[in-house]
């Protein structure tokens, strides 16, 4: 059976699934339940400075968007860092770590952007026996207005500076948690690396207004008639997170910097995808908050079954495997030609492929053949875009089939060439430089 034990910057856990710093990790009670359920590790809910803790709103702090059957696909929150006393948290962290030595215990920290603030808290955390710290440079609401969280994470110089302070002060590995609320995630990642970070984790939540109450004309969640932006997470953010993970993984300046992948991980498959793009492990918040801790059973079993099926024996066989296949658009092979093909046995005749292609794309799917309701691809028109596949409600009913070299593309009437040919060499490209066949990265 596949070995799914995880070693992330020297921090060991029985599996690569950690609970992200959030409500599920805010106290010993929850964390112990998580460990009992089988979670590999936790990033404790972000600690702040000693002294009176922050306060949360006393009304609703979450909002959501739903997919079919009211499945939660996106969650928005306006919660702050822990609103519990620092000493209580530290005591509990220490107790839980002592009780569960084989699980990863990371402590998330967010204190003001002053050297002394970081230097004071780090020894306290170290004393708990925690395995590492995560610097919360990501929280997009409430804390950033106080010059913390995303306010630091959006300024690469600050990231580098704070990371350096921490590295100078503590023996513990330092993971820098990045905010997605920036234009190019490579800059904060590079800054973390320059500051000496052992790893980055991403993403934190995305600035969002999740919905508007149309009776009160107020953003939701609504507190006494008003709402403020919150942080968005859950399945809906996974594509954004995957992209950011890949960007860092394939950036030559941060190549090799360990990544803890976060954002919408809900099943083993999501985790495998994050890891294949370069994440050394994953963190989960919304999925646990939606379904409870038991989902870990599906995640570990699913990951290990898949690895067995594929012949992967350890996580190292998976991590980063997809990274080299992420490239820039101009290096995609223009001689790769596909056509949609509809499996008539699986087709339930809903006609969605037809209307999608007809109304909005290439008029390449029939709705009638010989007077009968029937959906067939018109090869002369199909550009192989995949829209029909994406809108079809039946899995595997529509396939994209590659035309072999030598076959004629009925749309262009040209023979498919077997040679790799990309935009950089295309005659229509005014800046085409002959001979740039290999990706520049």
């Amino acid at each position, binding site marked *: 059976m596949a070995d799914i034990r995880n070693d992330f910057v020297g921090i060991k856990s029985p599996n690569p699934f950690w609970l992200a710093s959030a409500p599920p990790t805010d106290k010993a009670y929850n964390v112990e339940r998580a460990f009992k359920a089988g979670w590999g590790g936790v990033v404790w809910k972000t600690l702040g400075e000693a002294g009176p803790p922050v306060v949360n709103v006393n009304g609703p702090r979450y909002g959501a968007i739903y997919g*079919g*059957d*009211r499945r939660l696909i996106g969650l928005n929150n306006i919660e702050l860092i822990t609103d519990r006393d620092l000493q209580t948290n530290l005591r509990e962290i220490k107790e839980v770590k002592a009780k569960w030595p084989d699980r990863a215990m990371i402590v998330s920290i967010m204190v003001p952007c002053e050297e002394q603030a970081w230097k004071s808290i780090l020894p306290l955390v170290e004393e708990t026996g925690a395995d590492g710290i995560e610097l919360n440079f990501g929280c997009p609401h409430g804390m950033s207005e106080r010059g913390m969280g995303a306010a630091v994470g959006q300024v690469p110089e600050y990231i580098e500076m704070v990371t350096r302070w921490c590295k100078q002060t503590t023996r513990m590995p330092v993971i820098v948690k990045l905010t997605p609320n920036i234009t190019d995630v490579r800059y904060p990642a590079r800054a973390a690396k320059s500051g000496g970070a052992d790893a980055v984790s991403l993403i934190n939540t995305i600035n969002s207004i999740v919905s508007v109450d149309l009776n009160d004309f107020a953003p939701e969640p609504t507190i006494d008639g008003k709402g403020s932006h919150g942080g968005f997470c859950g399945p809906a953010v996974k594509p954004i997170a995957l992209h950011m993970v890949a960007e860092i993984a394939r950036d030559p300046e941060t190549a090799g910097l360990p990544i803890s992948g976060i954002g919408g991980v809900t099943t083993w498959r999501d985790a495998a995808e994050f890891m294949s793009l370069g994440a050394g492990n994953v963190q989960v918040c919304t999925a646990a908050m939606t379904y409870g801790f038991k989902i870990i059973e599906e995640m570990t079993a699913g990951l290990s079954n898949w690895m067995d099926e594929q012949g992967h024996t350890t996580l190292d066989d998976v991590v980063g495997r997809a990274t080299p296949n992420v490239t820039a658009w101009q290096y995609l092979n223009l001689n790769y030609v596909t056509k949609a093909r509809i499996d008539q046995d699986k087709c*339930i*005749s*809903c*006609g*969605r492929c*037809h*209307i999608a292609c007809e109304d909005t794309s290439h008029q390449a799917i029939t*709705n009638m053949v010989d007077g009968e*309701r029937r959906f067939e691809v018109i090869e002369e028109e199909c550009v192989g875009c995949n829209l029909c596949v994406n809108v079809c*409600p*039946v899995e595997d009913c529509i396939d994209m089939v590659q035309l072999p070299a030598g076959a004629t593309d009925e749309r262009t009437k040209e023979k498919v060439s077997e040679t790799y040919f990309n935009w950089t060499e295309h005659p229509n490209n005014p800046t085409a430089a002959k001979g740039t066949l290999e990706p520049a990265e």
Partner: protein
Amino acid sequence: MADKRMEDGVVAGRLPAKELVANFADIHPPLDHHEASVAADRCYFCYDAPCVTACPTEIDIPLFIRQIAADNRIGAAKTIFDQNILGGMCARVCPTETLCEQACVREAAEGKPVRIGLLQRFATDAAMEQDAQFYERVASTGKRVAVVGAGPAGLACAHRLAMHGHDVVILEARERPGGLNEYGIATYKTVGDFAQDEVDYITDIGGIDIRYSQKLGRDFTLGELRGDYEAVFLGMGLGGVNDLRIENEAPEGLEDAVDFISRLRQADDKSKIAIGRRVVVIGGGMTAVDCAVQAKLLGAEDVTIAYRRGQEQMNASRYEQDLAASRGVTIKHWAMPVDLATDGGKITGIEMEYTKLGDTRLEGTGERFSLDADQVFRAIGQTLVPDDLSGAADALEIVAGRIATIDAHGTTNMQGVWAGGDCAAGGEELTVTAAAQGRDAAEAINMSLRA
């Protein structure tokens, strides 16, 4: 009170009142908000959706379901009523398993169609409860149209004519409107006074004057109508019933299923309706099933439907047959009645003969059997009463016992006369078909009156 369950003969109050009330309650209770959301969510919003094609009134089903899913229940109701002003009744009585839901692509995909009928009810109930009226009459044309019969065909026709600004007089033979919606549909499909409420909702548009106890052929003639009105729509359904063609047609205990059903529908207190201990229903359609099931619900011990052909040929849908079976009704195929056994003028049994398909037609096999019965119902089809049409100057063309129509809009061979619903040839004998034909005839009448 003595238990009358096992009493021989035709007896009222076999079951305790409470049990009767439960038995005749809504067979498919309405969806609540959550159920409707889940059900609506399953719709794929198909292109040129097969369910729409399968609906005789061509309601834009994907659109109304999308409106429900998007929390616009009243808008959904309007989408339904735009095509079918009897959408509320149809939501209750349509055999959706052979119409829209059979065509649903999720029936093909998973054997579980979107619950279109119940969603239709969810939308229309909301609009009717709020009395949300969507239609206004256009400026009056001053033209008068006579509609014969206040059944679904007549009502649909009248509503559409009124919308177009014509003044409609409905001439109805009975004391109450609704036709078979009021007198025929099984009680558990349309509980409360829904049929009456629906008529009120429809006639709210104005310009529709219903005159009761006005029977064509008795109180006035078709010729007179043609003289007094600019156009005539015939929607009088099928008033007669077929004979059993057996010797003994008049003993006590023999009744037409439609009469029994009508009495039952009209009875507020079901314990007043007498039913046999052993009941045989002759026929294979929806009427036979409704009659048998309701006999069972009244407390009959044994109820048998005897049909002279096989399961495949039954007009009652598979779903209806299963419903009957689930209520404990026995369905006997390939058997026809030959004689009734009586004692002192009362039925005691029925003599049957097995049948088979001969070379050209159905024939008896010669083998006979008998069933004990103290009540026998005829449910072998309704017929047009030709006498009602007498008095017409030039004869209406009749084909296969129905008024012939020369196009899809119910135009008859007689100038200025249209027909639709059960009395007209073409289409299944269903509420929804009647609604479609009434509506389409109104459009044709409007065109001709405005020409």
